[in-house]
Every structure is written in C-alpha cells, then in structure tokens.
C-alpha cells in the first residue's frame, strides 16, 4: 500500500484549498464526482476520456456520461522504477500500481493505490479515489484519479 495520502471517496478539492485536479475534463463537474466518459448516442460505445468521435461507428456526437465509481480489476502491473519525463514525480519515488478497471460499459486505465502484487487480484472490487500525482511549483498538490481495492467483508 502506498504511503501517500489518499482522498476517499473521490471529491472535488474545495476552492481555496492547496490542491487541484490534474485535468478537470477527466471528471464530472456536478453531483457526485466520478470519471467523465463519452457515450455514443448511435451505438452506445463508451470511452474514457470523453472524445468527440466514436471509435466504433465513427459518429461525431458522443455525449458526456458520468462513469460508475466502482468496478472490478481487469488487469494490473506494478511500476517499480521511476518513469522518464513526461512523468512528474512528487519527490522520492515510490512504486505504484497501474491497472485496468472494468466499469461495465468501458474499461479504464488507472493508477492503483495498491503497489504490491500480493495485494491485488484480478476481478477484485475496486472504487474511485484521488491520489497526489505531483506538486506544482507553487506547492499546490495535483490530484489524479486512482482505484483502490474495496475492503473484503
């Protein structure tokens, strides 16, 4: 498990706080904050991030859709060394998990809170959180989306 602070559940940084989202367009802007995808009104194909053209049928009018905040782990790996730029670290490198989360209509690539293979298993229930990715030069914490394994009952 990462030692970095995790925002659970994912919520928008409050105005005036010392944190911001890495890219506003990745997230819904109203209601419960979840990932913002795109859905094709013609063939129902769903993408993340949202995009204008449909990758399946070529329609050009995909509509924003709030994606579910819970899904299952489809595949994963652990990044054990610091990537080169354009990666922006937050100081001392700590290994991090990367995986694909099956959200039903779309499979989303994401950071994972867990960073040890023994803590992850395919098909595990996962939920959306925010993790610090790096800091702006002025010290603002930049948050990105991640998925965290749900506690087993």
């Amino acid at each position, binding site marked *: 498990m990462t030692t970095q602070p995790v925002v659970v559940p994912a919520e928008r940084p409050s105005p005036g706080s010392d944190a911001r989202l890495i890219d506003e367009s990745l997230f819904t802007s109203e209601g419960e904050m979840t990932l913002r995808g795109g859905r094709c009104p013609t063939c129902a194909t769903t993408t993340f991030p949202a995009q204008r053209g449909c990758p399946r049928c070529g329609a050009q009018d995909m509509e924003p859709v709030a994606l579910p905040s819970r899904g299952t782990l489809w595949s994963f*790996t652990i*990044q054990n060394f610091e*990537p080169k730029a*354009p*990666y922006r670290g937050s100081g001392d490198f700590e290994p991090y998990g990367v995986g694909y989360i099956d959200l039903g209509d779309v499979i989303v690539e994401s950071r994972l809170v867990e960073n040890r293979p023994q803590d992850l298993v395919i098909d595990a229930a996962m939920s959306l959180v925010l993790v610090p990715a790096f800091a702006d030069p002025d010290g603002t914490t930049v948050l*990105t989306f991640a998925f965290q394994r749900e506690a087993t009952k």
Partner: protein
Amino acid sequence: MNVAVVGIGLHRFGRTPGVSGREQGAVAARQALSDAGLQWSDMQFAFGGSYDAGDADSLVSDLGLTGLQFINVKNGCATGGSALTASCNAITSGRYDLGIVIGFDKHQPGAFNMDPATLGIGSWYGESGLMLTTQFFAMKI
C-alpha cells in the same frame, strides 16, 4: 503479380558505440545492393524509416543523389513492415520494377518516454505515470 525480395543486408545488431543508427542503415543498404548484384543507381524508389536515428531519406547523401523517390515512413515498431507493404504496392501498381526498403534505429537505454500528445492524449496521462512501456507490451495485448 509476384513481388520478390532479391537481396538483403543487415548491420550486426547491438549497442555499437560510435556508429550512428543512420550509418548502420547505410551499411545494411550497401550489403543488400551487393547481395542482389545491383547498384544504388539501379534503385527506382525507396521507402524507409527510423524513430530516433534520423530521416531515412537523408541516406541519399551517403548512397548517392540519384534523384530516386525516397519516401519516409514513420510508424513506430511497424515502420519496417509498413515500408515493405508500401514497396510491394509501388511495384504491383506497375509504376516501378525495383526499389529498396531501409529501416534503422538507435534508442537511449531504458524505457521509451513518448509524449502522449503524439497519440492525441492529454498531458495528464504522461504526468501521472500512465505512459508506460509495460502497459503497452503486456496488459493491453
């Protein structure tokens, strides 16, 4: 119409300090011409490419300014296959009889570090650590 490979050349694969990828491409091209018993001036067209080691068409400076049509191909790991496909199409079209396909490269050690903008993805993707060789070659396949 059948299209045939009539000569091949290869610079020995390796780190090869002091020899640029582009220079290795010229070595391979000369070997292929020799293997086929042909001259550079016999080549009617060329397709070639490199990701990190220069523009393939600049090899005309080393091999000869014969005025041949040299088209650069830039298709990542598929550059060689794409150049070969384009050459086959050029010959089967009836426009040409004889040409050359040249691919070469030389990368810095370690993982690739592409800019996600080249794939139409936002900068957040690389900055947050998702632009990874591991996921390209393992999880996505």
